[in-house]
């Protein structure tokens, strides 16, 4: 689906990514984990073309990305924080993005799961943070994209909405979609991740399934396994 090869990125004196290789396959939920500032969001932005790598290649379905944005028709992105135009309503925003994508398709599933219908006609400035986050999620899933990129998807959601979202993510995975998930919430990672990519010091230090990670580190809890990885990474 998508493959990153030797991605380097520095911001001024700070080298954020120092040669990241990562492949995300179809029908898998791949969690990118790592400490704060390890470059998770930067990596996601590279995939979206929001930031440009200094070196390295990104290959989407066998074709190298060259600056044209058309491949993003296959991606649904849910950013961690999003500010929608204050004067637009949710419905206007959804219609606008459909129009921009030239894609009349709309998956109503999440709107129903979140019981959002009544909120869609209010302008964003009157909506709570949680409701905005729900619309953010609906937008990412709306066009049944091949690849979903979810950055801290359940932060700001109430437990019921968070649960509905997790169910939806699993459903999409089972339908053969790829998911890239970035999260600090252990429960979320435990509940969703199939594969884990551990990012530290600008490189992927560990890549494997969640089950292998736990077995390999001898920890039953993900939190413990990650703690071990971090200490090992710091030593190495």
């Amino acid at each position: 689906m998508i493959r990153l090869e030797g991605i380097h990125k520095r911001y001024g004196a700070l080298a954020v990514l120092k040669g990241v290789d990562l492949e995300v396959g179809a029908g898998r939920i791949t969690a990118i984990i790592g400490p704060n500032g390890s470059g998770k969001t930067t990596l996601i932005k590279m995939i979206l073309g929001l930031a440009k790598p200094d070196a390295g290649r990104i290959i989407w379905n066998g074709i190298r990305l060259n600056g044209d944005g058309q491949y993003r028709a296959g991606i649904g992105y849910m950013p961690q924080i999003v500010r929608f135009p204050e004067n637009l309503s949710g419905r206007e925003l959804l219609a606008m993005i459909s129009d921009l994508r030239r894609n009349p398709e709309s998956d109503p599933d999440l709107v129903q799961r979140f019981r959002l219908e009544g909120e869609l006609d209010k302008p964003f400035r009157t909506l709570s943070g949680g409701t905005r986050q729900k619309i953010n999620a609906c937008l990412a899933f709306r066009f049944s994209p091949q690849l979903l990129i979810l950055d801290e998807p359940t932060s700001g959601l109430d437990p019921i909405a968070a649960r509905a979202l997790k169910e939806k993510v699993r459903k999409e995975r089972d339908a053969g979609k790829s998911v890239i998930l970035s999260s600090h919430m252990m429960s979320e990672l435990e509940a969703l991740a199939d594969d884990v990519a551990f990012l530290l010091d600008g490189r992927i230090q560990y890549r494997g399934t969640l089950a292998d990670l736990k077995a390999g580190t001898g920890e039953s809890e993900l939190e413990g396994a990650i703690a071990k990885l971090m200490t090992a990474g710091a030593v190495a």
Partner: protein
Amino acid sequence: MSTMLKILRYELRDVMRSRALLMYGGFFLAATWLLFQFSSDSSKALLSLANVTLLIVPLVSIILGTMFVYDAREFSELLLAHPVNRRQLFGGLYLGLAVPLAAIYAVAVAIPVMVVGVPGEQVGTVVQLLLATVYLTCIFTAIAFAIALRVEDRVRGIGTALVTWLGLAVVYDALVLLGANALYAWPLERPLLAVILLNPVDLARVVLMLNFDVSALMGYTGAVFRDFFGGSTGLLVAVGALTVWVAVPLRLGSRLLERKDF
């Protein structure tokens, strides 16, 4: 419809509801109305309006433009996560501000002028004023875009915009005047022509002032400008230079956006 036009349409919807734009329109509506009410003749009113325009239009365009780009940052990021190219985004955002700014000025000035009515020979002046405003709006909005895309920090960006406006609309003129005064013994016509071509506000001013019998206000070089800019070649050169003044910052801004990391 192209992606750029779609973005433009949505931007227009948003910008048209903004309070700043309405205040801008309201200001020129009131200013034009009052000037025509209280001036002894419409030529004087137009001259005052031209002077207000030359100061306010660049200021509002550059300040609103800079703030607009910072405010649109999240929205840009949102759109760029979809199949939208950066060039399309740039075009949509730029026109989404420049078009309503120019349009609301035109409406705000045209309404009182039409209600009060101007003598036939001044209709051309009004049209020229509108044309100059379209150029000034496009130029200073483009400069604003370049500044806001170059300077990460919002406060510094708005500061830079303010200083740029001050430089081009106020300080530049003062310096030129000082220089011309100091070097009065030298033949300055040609260098001064060049100096004026290098500043869009001066360029617009000279083109406008030729319509009023105030070339004298521009000192002893007035005649030279009248000869140069008054002719059709001069006007063509002026419009050409103004067009370059739109194109250069636009290109710069577009490239800055193309390379920007969000």
